[in-house]
């Protein structure tokens, strides 16, 4: 229990640091020095000290968006296991709650974007919803495959899946897990608006997706959105290493350190992907996402038909 609370604080404090790791990785590849390690925290503090500007055409929906969005992501954080400990909240079926809490966060962001009445933000909302509709089946199907594979008696709890993961499972069904891992890399990049789906560094360009929805938010509201996005990246990285990494010693403290290193490793991986790849053309993004869906359906079908004998 205490370990779970510690891990929750670690997530809350460490999330913006992942952005720094990605940024420094990209800078290192490009031969630049990069921004200071604590820059994301300074950015958040600066925004929190500012006042917010609200357009007269917006309603309470616009103001509620960042608050509800951050609240939903924070709630989802309590469901994700880390290290050797269970998540703070764990119940049968919590991964469905996890996926839909993140869905709720997206919904309020989209509604806030539409509330401004800006055609530009409507376009971003359109793309965000279209792409997330394609990543959600990929995430759900691969979680379902994992639940059958690792959870034993069809357990639908992230914490149970996390504790059931071991090197033995990998040696038995490595290729199903490899398929799930490939699908999740695409889901992670897409859900967090990273290259090759979206470019987080572009501003005011017709190609962007997530950034364009939040153009009208300012001050603390924008800080909430940025912090929520960082936390979401942490959540997906923690889920990725927690449910797929077999490296476990059984010692609580050591496992937490290993998991932390793995999460940072995921951030370095994202940085490497962003350094070597260009953003995909917008029409070919759905193809990538549908491909991820196809791969996770394959994992699910193999699992569903009991191909792998224990």
């Amino acid at each position: 229990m205490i370990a779970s609370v510690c891990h929750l604080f670690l997530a809350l404090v460490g999330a913006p640091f992942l952005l720094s790791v990605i940024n420094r990785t990209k800078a290192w590849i490009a031969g630049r020095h990069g921004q200071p390690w604590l820059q994301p925290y300074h950015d958040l503090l600066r925004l929190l000290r500012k006042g917010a500007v609200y357009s007269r055409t917006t309603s309470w929906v616009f103001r509620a968006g960042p608050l509800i969005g951050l609240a939903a992501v924070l709630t989802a954080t309590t469901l994700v296991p880390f290290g050797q400990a269970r998540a703070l909240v764990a119940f049968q079926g919590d991964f469905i709650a996890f996926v839909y809490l993140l869905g709720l966060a997206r919904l309020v962001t989209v509604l806030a974007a539409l509330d401004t009445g800006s055609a530009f933000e409507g376009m971003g909302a359109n793309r965000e919803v279209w792409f997330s509709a394609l990543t959600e089946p990929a995430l759900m199907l691969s979680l379902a495959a994992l639940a059958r594979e690792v959870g034993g008696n069809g357990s639908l709890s992230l914490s149970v899946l996390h504790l059931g993961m071991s090197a033995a499972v990998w040696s038995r069904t490595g290729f199903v897990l490899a398929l799930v891992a490939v699908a999740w890399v695409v889901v992670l990049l897409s859900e967090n608006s990273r290259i090759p789906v979206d470019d987080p560094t572009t501003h005011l360009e017709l190609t962007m997706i997530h950034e364009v929805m939040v153009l009208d938010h300012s001050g603390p509201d924008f800080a909430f959105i940025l912090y929520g996005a960082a936390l979401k990246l942490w959540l997906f990285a923690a889920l990725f290493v927690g449910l797929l990494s077999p490296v476990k010693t059984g010692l609580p403290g050591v496992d937490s350190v290993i998991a932390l290193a793995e999460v940072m490793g995921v951030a370095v991986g994202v940085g490497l992907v962003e350094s070597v790849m260009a953003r995909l053309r917008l029409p070919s993004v759905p193809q990538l996402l549908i491909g991820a869906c196809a791969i996770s359906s394959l994992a699910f079908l193999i699992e569903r038909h009991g191909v792998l004998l224990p």
Partner: protein
Amino acid sequence: MTGLLEPALIVVILTNLAITASSRLAFGIRLVATQGVVAGLMPLVLSPEEVTVRLVVIGGLTVVLKGIVFPRLLDRTLRQAAVRREEDPPFGYKASIVGGVVTLGLAFWLTGPNRMPLPAPLASPLQLPAAVFTLLTGLFLIVARNNALNQVLGYLVMENGIFLIGLALALEEPLLLEMGILLDVFFGVLVMGVAIFHISRAFDSIEVDELTTLKD
């Protein structure tokens, strides 16, 4: 000893999905070649303890033909026709991946327990679904693509599927029969290559839609 079998079958399934999704013809040729090589080596993977001269000869011939000869022939045709990709197939690429997944589900359903009687238990339960899926993918490519070269690829994928089904149902096929099939496929690809060349000469494209404008 089926340690390599299931990864090999998954590679076959993944190449099928990739072929339905790729618009670049050269990439499609590579994918079909990879699939042919993996399928050709399947008999050796299935029974590594009893590798006979027969198995090695057939496996080697299949690899040489499907992995080297066919890609070269098709690449040459592609260069002559000066086409790089099929832009606008009757069944779009995104829809094709979805179609591929539906076909995969169909293949698993068709080969499910008690639905398809088998002469002997299989080395892997994935064997028959992968084989049927390959067959259906080939059929799908022939129907859903307009480009003559893509249709040839569909034909080759279908042949791989039939080969895999044969492997699942009867490991010991007569040598003469296997040789005959390989010879047929070889001449099939050779003749189709020539036909595509002539289509490209006559119409400046290798879309088979153009053939409907032919009059006698």
